[in-house]
C-alpha cells in the first residue's frame, strides 16, 4: 500500500493549505478556483450514482438548477415580493442590508439543499425503477423539462432570469466569500462520501452496479439504496447551485441553472476521466479536466470544445477505466488490491478489517 496513513494525512493537509492559500495568492482568479471546487463536487456526486452504483444519470444538473432557484427566491422573498422583483427585471433597486443578505443566503442554502433532496427522493420513486439507457434518457428528460418549465414561469423570472441581490462588501470580498463557501461545500461533500463509502451502503450500491437482479434475489432493499444515493447527490448539488447563482450574480434557466450540455456533461466527463467508482478518481478527473478547460479557453479559443471533445474521445476509447483506474490496473498493490491467492494459515493475529480498501485509496 502506497497510501499509508501518514502520506494520506500529508496529502489532505497539502490540499487544504493550497485551497486556503489560492484566493490570496491569485486573487484575480478566485472565481475560477471557486468553480474548480464546484467541479470537484459535481464529479463526486455524479460518481455516487454513475460510478459506485452504475446508474448513469444525464440529468443531475436538475438539482443544481433547482438549488439555485430555490436559494434565489428565498433570498429575495425574505425581503421583497418575488413577483414584483422579477417582473421589474432588475430595474428596481432593492437594497438588502448585510444582515438581511446573509440571513436570506443562509436560509436559501438550507432550503436549496433540502428542496433538491426532496425532489430527488420523489424522482427516485418515479425513475429508479428503470435501468440502463432508459434511466439515462429519463433523467435527461427531467433536466430539459426543468429548464423549459422554468423558462415559462414568469413568477421566477421566466427566460429573463433573476438579478441576484448585491453582495454587501467591498471589491474582492464577494469573490473571496464565495470561493471559501464553494471550498467548504466541496470538502463537506468529500467527507460525506468518504464516510458513506465506509459503511454497508458502499457494498450494497456496488452490488447493484455489478448485478441488480442478484441483489434483488438476495433481498437487498435496492430502491432504498438508490434513493439515498441520489438524494445525497442532490443535497450537495443543491448547495452548489445556490452558491454558483450568487457567485454569478444572475440566474437564468438555460445557461446558468440547467446547463445540460456544459456542466451536465462535464460532471460525467470528469468522473470518467479520473476513474469512476473510486473516491479520488472524480477529484483527479475534475482537476485535470478543469485545468484542460481553462488552458484551452485561454490558448485555444475557438477550438476549446474540439480539444475537450478529443480529450473525452481518447478517454472513452483508450482509457475507459480513467486515470486512477489505469494506475490501479498497473499497480494494484499500491491500492491494496489483491490479484494473487494468499494461502495463509487461518486464525492469525487480528486481521485488519476493511470493507472497502480500494475506494478509500
Amino acid at each position, binding site marked *: 500500500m502506497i497510501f499509508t496513513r501518514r502520506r494520506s494525512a500529508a496529502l489532505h493537509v497539502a490540499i487544504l493549505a493550497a485551497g486556503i492559500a489560492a484566493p490570496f495568492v491569485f486573487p484575480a482568479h478566485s472565481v475560477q478556483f471557486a468553480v474548480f471546487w464546484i467541479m470537484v463536487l459535481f464529479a463526486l456526486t455524479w460518481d455516487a450514482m454513475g460510478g459506485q452504483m452504475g446508474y448513469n444519470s444525464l440529468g443531475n444538473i436538475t438539482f443544481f438548477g433547482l438549488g439555485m432557484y430555490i436559494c434565489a427566491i428565498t433570498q429575495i422573498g425574505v425581503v421583497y415580493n418575488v413577483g414584483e422583483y422579477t417582473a421589474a427585471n432588475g430595474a428596481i433597486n432593492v437594497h438588502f442590508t448585510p444582515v438581511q443578505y446573509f440571513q436570506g443566503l443562509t436560509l436559501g442554502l438550507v432550503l436549496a439543499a433540502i428542496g433538491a433532496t426532496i425532489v430527488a427522493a420523489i424522482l427516485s420513486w418515479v425513475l429508479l425503477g428503470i435501468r440502463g439507457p432508459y434511466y439515462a434518457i429519463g433523467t435527461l428528460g427531467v433536466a430539459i423539462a426543468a429548464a423549459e418549465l422554468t423558462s415559462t414561469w414568469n413568477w421566477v423570472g421566466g427566460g429573463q432570469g433573476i438579478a441576484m441581490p448585491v453582495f454587501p462588501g467591498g471589491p474582492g470580498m464577494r469573490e473571496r466569500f464565495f470561493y471559501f463557501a464553494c471550498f467548504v461545500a466541496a470538502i463537506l461533500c468529500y467527507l460525506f462520501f468518504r464516510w458513506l463509502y465506509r459503511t454497508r451502503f458502499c457494498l450494497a450500491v456496488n452490488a447493484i452496479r455489478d448485478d441488480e437482479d442478484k441483489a434483488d*434475489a438476495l433481498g437487498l432493499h435496492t430502491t*432504498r439504496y438508490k434513493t439515498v444515493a441520489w438524494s445525497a447527490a442532490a443535497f450537495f448539488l443543491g448547495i452548489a447551485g445556490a452558491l454558483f447563482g450568487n457567485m454569478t450574480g444572475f440566474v437564468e434557466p438555460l445557461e446558468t441553472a440547467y446547463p445540460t450540455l456544459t456542466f451536465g456533461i462535464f460532471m460525467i466527463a470528469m468522473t470518467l476521466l479520473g476513474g469512476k467508482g473510486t473516491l479520488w478518481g472524480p477529484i483527479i478527473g475534475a482537476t485535470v479536466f478543469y485545468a484542460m478547460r481553462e488552458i484551452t479557453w485561454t490558448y485555444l479559443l475557438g477550438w476549446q470544445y474540439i480539444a475537450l471533445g478529443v480529450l473525452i474521445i481518447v478517454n472513452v476509447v483508450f482509457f475507459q477505466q480513467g486515470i486512477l483506474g489505469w494506475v490501479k490496473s498497473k499497480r494494484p498493490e499500491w491500492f491494496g488490491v489483491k490479484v494473487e491467492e494468499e494461502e495463509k494459515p487461518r486464525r492469525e493475529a487480528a486481521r485488519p478489517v476493511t470493507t472497502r480498501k480500494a475506494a478509500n485509496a
Partner: protein
Amino acid sequence: MSDPIIEVAGVTKAFGGVVANRDVSLAVERGSITGLIGPNGSGKTTLFNSIVGQHPIDSGSIRFEGREISRMGVQKIARLGMLRTFQQTRVFGKMDCVENMLVSLPHRESGWLEMFRPYPPELVEKAEHLLEFVGLYSKRRLAAGSLSFGQQKLLEFAMALMNEPKALLLDEPTAGINPTLINGLIDRLKRANRDYGITLFVIEHNMRVVMNLAQHIYCMAFGKVLASGAPADVKDDPRVIDAYLGAAA
C-alpha cells in the same frame, strides 16, 4: 408430507401461447432435500422463478411456511427466508469474495439506518469461515469476476448460506463443475442441509447427483409433474424413462 415449507398448488404460467407450467402441484418438506428433474424445457426453471417471485403466475397458489407468496416480489420473498441461486451463475464480479459475502447478509430486519453502519469484524470472520467451508478461503480477496465458473458457483452457494435462508432453491448446482469437485459439492450441500438446517430444493440434470442427494424427487415433463417419489422409484418409473429417452411405443 407432514410439514411442508413450500407448497405449490395448481400453478399455471404461460408466456404468450407457450404454457411453461400447467397445473403444477408439489410440496417440499421442511428440512428435506428435494430434487426436481426433467428434460430440457420441461418448465423447471420457470417453476423456480414463479416460486421466488421473479414473475407473476397466471393461476394457482404458492405458499411458504403457510403464507401465500404468489403475489409478492423477489426481494420480499428473499427476506422471508427463501433464496435461489441461478443456473447461469451470478456473483458481483468487481467486488472481492469477502465483499460478495458481506453484501449477502440477511436483510430481513434491516431498517433504513442499517446501511450507514460498518460491518463488524465478527461478520467478516463469518464470511471467511463460510468461504473456507466452500474451499475459497485462499481466494477471498480476489475479484469474484476473476474466478472460474465452478468457483463462482461455489461462491454463490456460500453467499446463499451467508444469507441464512430457511429454504434454498438451487438451479443446477453442479452444472459446469469439474467432475472431481462434484463429490465435494454434494457433501457440502448435505452438510448445509444437516448442519444449518436449510431446506434444499434442487434442479439437477446429473442423475447420479440427484439420486445421491435427494430424499424425494419430482419429475417434470412438458410443464407438468409427471412422477414423484423416492429416488429409486422415480428412476425406475417407465414414464420418467420415456420422458427422457422418448416413448418406446
